């Protein structure tokens, strides 16, 4: 029973860190599909839990004037089998209300901090540089172009306006290449479930041209077949590989042009 009480107290102290991490990772592009162990999550929650508890401690003592008896926490956590286990249960009983108010305050602070941190990271693109800060499935970074850093680009921090995809698919007649503009993608537990393309052209993969050959400008040869329909959906299970090309704005070189 006493061991359970110590474990419960320890969990309450660490839980703000876990909450911060949950709030940070939650969102439309959740990282839920990334496989992480409970141990990893606990370790990653330790640092924010410590920072939140430090902030809570400082606020409770300096702003509200509470005197927090850390020795009582220590005595409760070590368990009854330890000779130093001599908690002051009268004091603990008197402080329960304040402790729960403090805990709830810290939970709310953790959630707000997680949401705020996510917004900050999204705006500053820190997640592109620092992998531990990534909140999305890695496929999201690839398919959205968010993986691009200023070093990758001709001009720093160009916004991706369209993603063009070549998809290699195996069919009974051989490998087929589908080329089109990426409209949507759906993440799954294994990575990507399916992708949706606009303006799709199809050609046989074995009909590549030689490097020495050139296509006439602004024309397509007969190898390409335009797929009818509004939206082309390819299940991930049929995809052999993907070739992604990102397009962004270009500088306006005349008064009539609109760059995007």
């Amino acid at each position: 029973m006493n061991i359970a009480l110590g474990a419960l107290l320890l969990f309450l102290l660490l839980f703000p860190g876990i909450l911060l991490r949950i709030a940070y990772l939650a969102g439309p592009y959740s990282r839920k599909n990334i496989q992480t162990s409970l141990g990893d999550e606990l370790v990653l929650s330790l640092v924010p839990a410590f920072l939140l508890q430090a902030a809570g401690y400082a606020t409770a003592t300096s702003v509200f004037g509470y005197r927090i008896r850390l020795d009582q926490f220590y005595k409760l956590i070590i368990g009854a089998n330890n000779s130093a286990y001599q908690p002051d249960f009268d004091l603990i009983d008197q402080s329960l209300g304040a402790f729960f108010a403090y805990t709830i305050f810290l939970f709310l602070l953790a959630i707000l901090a997680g949401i705020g941190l996510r917004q900050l990271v999204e705006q500053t693109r820190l997640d592109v540089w620092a992998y531990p800060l990534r909140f999305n499935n890695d496929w999201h970074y690839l398919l959205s172009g968010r993986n691009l850093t200023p070093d990758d680009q001709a001009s720093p921090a160009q916004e991706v306006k369209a993603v063009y995809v070549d998809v290699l698919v195996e069919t009974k007649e051989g490998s087929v290449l589908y080329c089109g503009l990426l409209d949507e993608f759906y993440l799954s537990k294994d990575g990507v479930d399916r992708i949706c393309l606009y303006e799709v052209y199809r050609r046989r993969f074995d009909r590549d041209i030689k490097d020495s050959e050139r296509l006439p400008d602004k024309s397509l040869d007969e190898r390409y077949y335009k797929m009818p329909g509004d939206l082309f959906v390819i299940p991930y299970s049929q995809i052999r590989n993907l070739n992604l090309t990102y397009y962004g704005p270009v500088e306006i070189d005349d008064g009539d042009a609109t760059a995007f």
Partner: protein
Amino acid sequence: MKAPMSDDVRRILANPKAADDFVRQIITSRRQDENAVISVELDGKTYKFQRIGRRSGINRTNG
């Protein structure tokens, strides 16, 4: 979830002729000059864009 696609690109794709011109230029430029500016005329406006990414800036004329 939606892939990044600007309103202008969606406007181009909504027009069959402009969409066809747009994609044809992309396919052709990717073989011949990856850094070529894609230029599409629509409703009296010229929309331009260019490849960005790891290999942009590399002059690759025949590929």
